[in-house]
């Protein structure tokens, strides 16, 4: 293990986060089993109060999850000098088998936690907690992922061994590494990907606007926004990063959040995460439009969500286009290597 202050902070955040989720799930299960809004039983009153606690807890977890996602990448990047062959976070995450799975789980659980908050907000608008059971089912679904993420993250950091000088010679020759860690990231060819990105984005935005105006095609928009999220991630690796680094061979999706590129990556990723959470929120809430106590407000809220998602995607696209136009890199032909 590497006893680095930032590693300690990461692990602390992971343990605190899963501790809070476990606590929330404990009461969530009780709510699932004993919830009865008609009853005036003491247990029901206690549970009603606990819902406040759980939603507060989960908003903290949600914030913590977002912060720790970035902290995780930051940590991976700052540990780079300790490993032979690692050039940036991409290489460090590859040091053992747990780095990338943790990252994927972090993103996944962040999106799920965001969806939970959307559901929670809608639920709080109704006087009779109409979505309470669904909400806590979703929570019970999220919890194992967050716990698994904590386990993987601990394994990742605890398995790390820095390549330091050994007493016979440099560590390079003692540990018989085959080659350095592959810090190259496989990527899609840039130019076709650019076409895909822009056409998919215009489709998604059109669908979103159509839904906002006419109220039709909500599920399609939710699906498209998820698809668009994945397409955008691939695009960042494939061509957006190239324009930001102004280097036709550097595909790293992590270096853009570093100081050298004026932290532009934070803005890009925040827009993207915000867009996908609100876009998926549309799909998550649509089935409940007919619920009696929510009828009055839910339609408006869903439309607002869709609008927010469309605006965030549009802002993302605008930012990306600005980066491409203002970059001094010109991709005339594909670099094959």
């Amino acid at each position, binding site marked *: 293990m*590497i*006893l*680095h*202050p*930032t*590693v*300690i*902070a*990461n692990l*602390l*955040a992971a343990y*605190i986060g899963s*501790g*809070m989720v476990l606590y929330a799930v404990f009461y969530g299960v009780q709510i699932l089993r004993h919830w009865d809004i008609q009853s005036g039983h003491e247990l029901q009153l206690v549970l009603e*109060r606990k819902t*406040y*606690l759980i939603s*507060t*807890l989960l908003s*903290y977890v949600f914030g*913590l999850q977002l*912060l*720790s996602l*970035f*902290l995780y990448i*930051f*940590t991976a990047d*700052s540990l780079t*000098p*300790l490993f*032979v062959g690692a050039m940036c976070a991409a290489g460090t995450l590859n040091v053992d088998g747990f780095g990338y799975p943790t990252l994927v789980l972090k993103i996944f659980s962040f999106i799920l936690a965001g969806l939970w908050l959307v559901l929670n907000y809608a639920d*709080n608008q109704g006087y009779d907690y109409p979505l309470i059971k669904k909400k806590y089912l979703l929570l019970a679904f999220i919890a194992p992922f967050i716990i698994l993420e904590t386990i993987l993250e601990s394994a990742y950091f605890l398995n790390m061994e*820095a*390549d*330091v*000088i050994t*007493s*016979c*010679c*440099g*560590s*390079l*020759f003692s540990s018989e590494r085959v080659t350095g860690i592959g810090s190259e990231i496989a990527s899609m060819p840039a130019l076709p990907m650019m076409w895909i990105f822009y056409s998919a984005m215009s489709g998604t935005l059109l669908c979103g606007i159509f839904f906002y105006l006419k109220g039709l095609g909500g599920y399609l928009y939710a699906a498209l926004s998820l698809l668009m999220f994945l397409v955008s991630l691939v695009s960042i690796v494939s061509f957006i990063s190239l324009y930001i680094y102004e280097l036709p061979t550097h595909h790293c999706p992590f270096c853009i959040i570093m*100081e050298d590129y004026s*932290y532009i990556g934070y803005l890009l990723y925040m827009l993207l995460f915000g867009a996908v959470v609100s876009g998926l929120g549309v799909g998550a809430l649509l089935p409940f439009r007919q619920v009696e106590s929510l009828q009055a407000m839910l339609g408006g809220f869903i439309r607002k969500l869709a609008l927010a998602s469309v605006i965030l995607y549009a802002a993302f696209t605008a930012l990306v286009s600005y980066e491409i136009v203002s970059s001094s890199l010109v991709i005339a032909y594909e670099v094959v290597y």
Partner: protein
Amino acid sequence: MRNWIEKQRYIIDFTISSLLRRKVKNFGLLALYTLIVFILASTMFFTYAIKKEASLILKGAPEIVVQKIVAGRHDLFPASYIETIKSIRGVASVESRLWGYYYDSLVSANYTLLTPPSSDAAKPSAKTTVVESESGGQSARPLYELNGAVLEPGTLIIGNGVARLRNIGKDDYMPFRAFDGKVMNFRIAGVLSSQSELVSSDLMLITGEDFRKLFGIDQSHVTDLTVAVNNPSEVEMVASKIKKHLPDARPIIRDEILRTYDSIFNWRGGMMIVIFSAAVLAFVIFAWDKASGLSAGERREIGILKAVGWETSDVIQMKFWEGAVVSLTAFFSGVILAYVHVFFTGSIVFEPALKGWSSLYPNFELTPFVNLEQLTTLFFLTVVPYTVATIVPIWRAATIDPDSAMRFTGE
């Protein structure tokens, strides 16, 4: 949206005035919180700045250093090996080095004696000679600067720390006891500039001939070699070839030195944080206690708020803003205090623990170096635990029934 912002503004307004109404209790918490942030921030700023300093200096270090190992220990390097290494393809130049330590029993300190590369000593006209490896580039620090001093046989150029310790300066004489017991007297030709004191504090520059006389090393041996390699991606290959041709040699690559230093400082910093985690834990318990032990007045206040129409979620929001105000005030004042402590007062509190011990202490000022990573880490180590510790007490306070709250406090 506008309404929402207005609502938050009123809640913050209310929160701050209610915080100010209970000055003593809240300032106690704030002071303790600031202290915790201050301690952790000082540790982190100090280790990161030292790490930065070390990496800047090492950037100018040679790509490969080759030592000879006998029975697992560092030994003198046979000069005949130099040709073997020169013949390896990719090697740009090979330079032999003479350096060692001399223990001065008078002041019980170790000096580092070094023979500067031959090219520097032969530049008497230069006013300030900056000795720096070419590969270092702009950002690398010079290892030492000769302030116009000229090194001749029989003279020494000494580092600032030595000058301070022995209270000597230019043109003074300094006696040494050679390997055979004879006394050798050297004239001080100059003192190194203080800018590089972190590394040159205990340094003494001496000519090769004098060095050999002092330590009894014959012409066929040197201390070690530095190897320059033109293409950075060939460094590892050259090092492995040296190891192959000369099995008793120990090539050390610059990156490995950097990596090892990094690990050591990471470890020291991490160790300090683990030690201080006990303090953080104590603070978290304190915060928990503070937050859950509501005074009668506070209970009544919450009761009245709820009676006049505040919802549970409003009270939670109020408490959230209370936590945010306290946390951010403590966090920023702690960080600013730590910044002053580390970079302006030379971290008087932690210096002995983090720097190690030596009778020849370098006096140096760290270059301020603070980045987002350090601040985020600090935030996670202090604000996050505090926030989490207060959630449950906050919720408990916010769900008090108005009637019971008011009835309870009617004593």
